[in-house]
C-alpha cells in the first residue's frame, strides 16, 4: 500500500446520515472479480438517472444534476464530508475501493460503521471522526464557499481550511502508523509465523475436535 501523504483537497458535502454500502456501491457491481474500476459506479443510483449495469460505459449515461458530486463546484473533490454512521450495512470492501477509485482520500463524518472503518485503512483512505457541531460548521462552510478545500495532515492530525482555520482530529496510533508507513499487514503478521504455529499446536491439543472438514 502507498504511504499516506499530506494533501489539500476540495471538500464535497453529502448531507445525509446512515449512508450504507449498498448506496456507496450497488450490488450489481460486486460481480466484478477485480479490485479496481469501481469509481464510475460510486453512488450509482444517486448519481445517474438510468439503471447501471456492470461492464457499461458510464461516460454517456444521464446524470442526476441534483446529486452533489455532479455539481461543477465539487468536481475533483477528494475529501468527502458526511453525517453519522457512514458505511453501515454490508462488509463489501468494494465500498472503499469505489471511493478510492473515484479519488477520495479522506472521509469526514460524525461516526463510521465498524467494518467499513476498518476496510478504509486497508485501502489508504483516512476516515476522520469529528463532533456533530464541527461537521455542521464544515458543511455550512463548504456550501457557502465555492472551491472550499481542506489540507489533511495525518502526521500532525490536523485539518486546515482555505482561510487558515485549523482543527485537530483523534486517531489511534497504530492506525495512523499503518497509513503513514503504508504497512503491508499480511507480511507483518507472517513475521510472527513461529508464534502462530506454537499457538496453533497447543490450541489443537486443547480442542482436538477443531480443524476438521
Amino acid at each position, binding site marked *: 500500500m502507498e504511504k499516506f501523504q499530506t494533501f489539500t483537497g476540495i471538500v464535497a458535502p453529502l448531507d445525509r446520515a446512515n449512508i450504507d454500502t449498498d*448506496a456507496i456501491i450497488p450490488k450489481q457491481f460486486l*460481480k466484478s472479480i477485480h*479490485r479496481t474500476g469501481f469509481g464510475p459506479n460510486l453512488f450509482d443510483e444517486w448519481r445517474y438517472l438510468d439503471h447501471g449495469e456492470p461492464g457499461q460505459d458510464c461516460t454517456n449515461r444521464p446524470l442526476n444534476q441534483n446529486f452533489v458530486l455532479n455539481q461543477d463546484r465539487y468536481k475533483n473533490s477528494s475529501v468527502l464530508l458526511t453525517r453519522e454512521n457512514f458505511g453501515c450495512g454490508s*462488509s463489501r470492501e468494494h465500498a472503499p475501493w469505489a471511493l478510492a477509485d473515484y479519488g477520495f482520500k479522506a472521509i469526514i463524518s460524525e461516526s463510521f460503521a465498524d*467494518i467499513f472503518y476498518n476496510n478504509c485503512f486497508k485501502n489508504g483512505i483516512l476516515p476522520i471522526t469529528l463532533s456533530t457541531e464541527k461537521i455542521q460548521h464544515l458543511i455550512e462552510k463548504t456550501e457557502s464557499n465555492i472551491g472550499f478545500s481542506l489540507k489533511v495532515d495525518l502526521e500532525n492530525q490536523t485539518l486546515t481550511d482555505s482561510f487558515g482555520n485549523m482543527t485537530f482530529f483523534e486517531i489511534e*496510533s497504530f492506525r495512523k502508523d499503518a497509513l503513514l508507513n503504508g504497512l503491508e499487514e499480511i507480511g507483518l*503478521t507472517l513475521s510472527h509465523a513461529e508464534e502462530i504455529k506454537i499457538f496453533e499446536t497447543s490450541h489443537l491439543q486443547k480442542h*482436538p475436535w477443531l480443524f476438521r*472438514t
Partner: protein
Amino acid sequence: MSGKTLYDKLWDSHLVRENEEGTSLLYIDRQLIHEVTSPQAFEGMRLANRSLWRTEANVAVPDHNIPTKDRDKGIEDPFSKLQVDTLDENCDSFQIKEFKMSDPNQGIVHVIGPEQGLTLPGMTIVCGDSHTSTHGALGALAFGIGTSEVEHVLSTQCLIQQKSKNMLIKMNGELKQGITAKDLILFIIGKIGTAGGTGYAIEFGGDAIKALSMEGRMTVCNMTIEAGARAGLIAVDQTTLDYVNGKPFAPKGELWDQASEYWKTLQSDQDAVFDKTIEIDAGDINPMVTWGTSPEMVTDVDGMIPFTTNGKFQPALDYMGLAQGTAIKNIDLDKIFIGSCTNSRIEDLREAAKVVDGKKVSDSIKLAMVVPGSGPVKAQAEQEGLDKIFLDAGFEWREPGCSMCLAMNADRLESGERCASTSNRNFEGRQGQGGRTHLVSPAMAAAAAIKGHFVNVTTVGWEN
C-alpha cells in the same frame, strides 16, 4: 478481579499475541467463503505468491449470485457466472472444501455453517460478509470482515484486531404468543438504533433469549450487525448442545464428550462486568414492521408512521412513497419474500406455512416466493409437506440462495414495487433499484401475502 464475559473468554482463548502498538493477533478457527468477497483475496495471494495457512479451516459455498429456478440451465448472467466459476476454480486449485451449486447441501453460507456442524461453539469464525454475526448464536465469536482480511486469514489464519467493548442486552420475561425472534431483534434495533452497538460485541441474555430455539437465536444474532455491532453472542446451554449433536461435521463419541464439557463453560461469569447493559421487557413486544429505509425505522403493526417536525424522515418516506401518520395496516404490498439468512430455516418455513395453510395468496400480490436457506432445509420442508401448502396457496417454491434479499440474481423488485420481506435490510435499492422493502417475520409476511396488506398475525382471524 471481576469475572469474564463470554466475549472475553472467546477472545482470550484465541489470542496469539498482543502487538506492540496496542492491537492483538487473533487466531481464526473457521473461515467461510462465498463468491462475492473472495476473488480479490485469492488474486492477492497469487500475486504475493503465498499459500494457504491451513486448508481445512476454510469452507466455501456460492450463494449470492445463483439462480433459484431452472438451475440445470446454469447461470444466465455472464458476470454472475464468472464470479461463481471463479470461486469453483479457486477452491479447486487451493483444495478448499466447497459445496458447489449442484451439491444437495448447497445453501446460504450462514445457514449451512451451523447446519453442517462446520461452525461450532467456542470457535472464532469469520466470513467476508457482515451477517457472519449469525453464528454467534452457537456461543462462537463470529464477525464479518472485508476482502483484505479474507486474504489475511487465508494466508496467516489470524487477524489483527482490537478488542470491542462488552454490551449485554437482557430480555426479561416472556414473549407474547405468536411473537418471534424477528420481532424481538427488530424491536431492539428500534430501541438502540442502527449505530447503537457500534464498537461493541453484544451478548443477548435473559429468559426470553433462553426460551428461543437455535433458529430463533440465529435470527437475533444475524441482525446484530443492523444494530451496529459486528458480533452477537448467546451463551451455550442445553438447546445449543442438542442442536449441534449429530450434525455431519460435529465431533462424535469421546470427542463429543470432551467438546461438550468445554462448551458448557461458554457463558459469562456471574460477576462479569459489561461496559453497557440494556434491559428490555420481552412482554412489551408486538409484531414489528419497518416503514423506512433503515432497520431502525420500525414500529409495531398496530402503529403508524411517526410524525416528526424536523423533516428527518422525509428522504426515507419519499423513497418509500409513504406519508407520516399512515397506519401500518393500510400499506398495500406487491411482492412477498420469505427467505434470507435471517429467516429461511426450517422453523421459519413452518411458521409461515402454519399461517398460509388452506388459504390463498391475495389477487393483488404479483409474486409471493419462498426461498429455503439450504438444500437440507428444502428437503426437510418437502418431507413435511410445507412446499405443498405454499404451492397450493399460490406461492412459488424455489431453490436455496440469497435471492431477493439483495437481488444479485434474477429475483428482484421493479422500481416502485413494495415488498414484505423476511430479510434484514430495507436500504434503498437493496431488493432492486427503486424497490421498497418492509422487514417482517415469516408469519407476518405470510399473513400479508394472504391479505395483500399488513395485518397483526397474532390476532384471531387477523381482524383489521
